[in-house]
């Protein structure tokens, strides 16, 4: 039942909003993983980021795509928790592990073993709109456990203007989505983080971001 609701929610609400109201300008959509297990890592500016990435995967792959999202934010009440886990299909992640000796990556590992495609925002928070922050190293722990899983870097620009943190009104702007070549575990944590970081910088450099004066 919730699967049908999820399908309809994405078909009738998310896709029209993302494709018509926002409008996408995608480069190299063919580099997105066709099947799981796979991970997509992207910069994070807005709640719309997740919706854009899930739209890119199309309705056919929807059932396999799950965003990883902060448990403290998305499970804060029962209605929100139901909507986040059942309709959006998030895999909750504890951002702060307090005392309890429990594997924080258990949910992610289970999903990868089930062959899912995961969407991760390694900045950890939306932060200041359209300002990219350094990726947290949690992704390296996942890559180390699953060296065969490809990590596809995606850079998005524009959504921080459409729906930035703290704003409830959506204002349409075209969104640029640049997709890079998948990266696999090179054997070392530093090398992995460096490869991801370089890929993101390269993707960001593809976009001439309009500014009035050179800053």
């Amino acid at each position, binding site marked *: 039942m919730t699967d049908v609701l999820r399908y309809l929610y994405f078909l009738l609400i998310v896709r029209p909003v993302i494709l018509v109201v926002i409008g996408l*300008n995608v480069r190299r959509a063919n580099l997105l993983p066709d099947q799981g297990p796979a991970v997509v890592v992207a910069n994070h500016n807005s709640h719309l980021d997740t919706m854009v990435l899930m739209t890119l995967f199309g309705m056919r792959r929807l059932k396999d795509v799950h965003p990883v999202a902060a448990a403290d934010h998305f499970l804060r009440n029962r209605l929100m928790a139901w909507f986040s886990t059942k309709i959006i299909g998030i895999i909750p992640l504890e951002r702060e592990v307090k005392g309890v000796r429990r594997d924080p990556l258990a949910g992610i590992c289970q999903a990868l073993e089930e062959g899912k495609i995961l969407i991760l925002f390694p900045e950890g928070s939306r932060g200041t*709109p359209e300002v990219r922050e350094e990726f947290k190293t949690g992704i390296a722990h996942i890559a180390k456990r699953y060296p065969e899983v490809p990590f596809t870097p995606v850079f998005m620009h524009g959504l921080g*203007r459409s729906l*930035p943190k703290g704003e409830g009104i959506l204002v*349409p*702007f*075209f969104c640029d989505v640049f997709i890079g070549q998948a990266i696999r575990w090179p054997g070392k944590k530093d090398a992995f983080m460096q490869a991801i970081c370089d890929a993101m910088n390269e993707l960001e450099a593809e976009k001439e971001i309009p*500014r*009035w004066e050179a800053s």
Partner: protein
Amino acid sequence: MFSHLSTEIHLTFAAIAVLLLLANAILFLRQRSVPDRDDTELALRVRTWWVIVASFAAVLAVSRTTAVVFFGFVSFLAFKEFLSLIPTRRADHRVLFWAYLAIPLQYIWVGTAWFGMFIIFIPVYMFIWLPTRMVLIGETKGFLRAIGTVQWGLMTTVFSLSHAAMLLFIQPETSARVAAVWADESAKTSPGAALLVFLVLLTQFNDVAQFCWGKTVGKRKVIPKVSPGKTVGGLIGGVASTVALAGFVGPWLTFLDLPRSLMAGLIIGLSGFAGDVSISALKRDLGVKDSGSTLPGHGGVLDRVDSLTYTAPLFFHFIYYCYG
């Protein structure tokens, strides 16, 4: 379904389809004679032309209201492209929301043929409301630049373009300065739609004519800093071709007589050029080649309607002066 459009409009669309088929045939022959020539961009452009012409014909065929909604949607896409291109201030989030709200409102005035409101809504009410809303937020740094760009965007992509849709509601007055001349009884069924088809056809034809003449004749550049492809010869040849086509099509398709048709051709030819290079200057200022990627082979919507943003209001007011 099609009976509310005159025979002349049907024939015009048929003629456009023949021209596009001709373009397809030329592309096919070029490909056969020189197989390694890369015509992908050109082929893509022709294919998008088919989509544009088919959508335009379809919305006109359904109803006048559908055509108005269609133009509203084109305005929305063009305005969104404009805002996405220019730098905007984060503080203006809600101001931009109001600016977007002006689009459905402006097209409601068009759809209800409320001429008085249509003509002042953006130049007066939005002109005053948007800076007021901006001031209430209280960010003064970059104020003039922010309000100037948003208002210019609304004027070109919404106010100007909505004049094209407003043509649909034109009925020549009996007491007008110039008497309407009809080719036949059928032409009387849809005078507004005929004017709109005439405007769009000539504006787009003018773009193509200026491009083709610019490629073949003329060395002296008109404004090399803005548009290196535009030559004096191309401009003259393009405008002359547009005036000729206007004289040929106008008296038959619309209620314009021959002198008025030729004048309309001249207005569209010159202002189409001005609109084209104005948007080119905007893109050059921002360092981008295309305004977007919505129309494969053409770039963005703004790239396609750039000349129309100038020809539509001028043609409308020419008609309004003569026949209103």
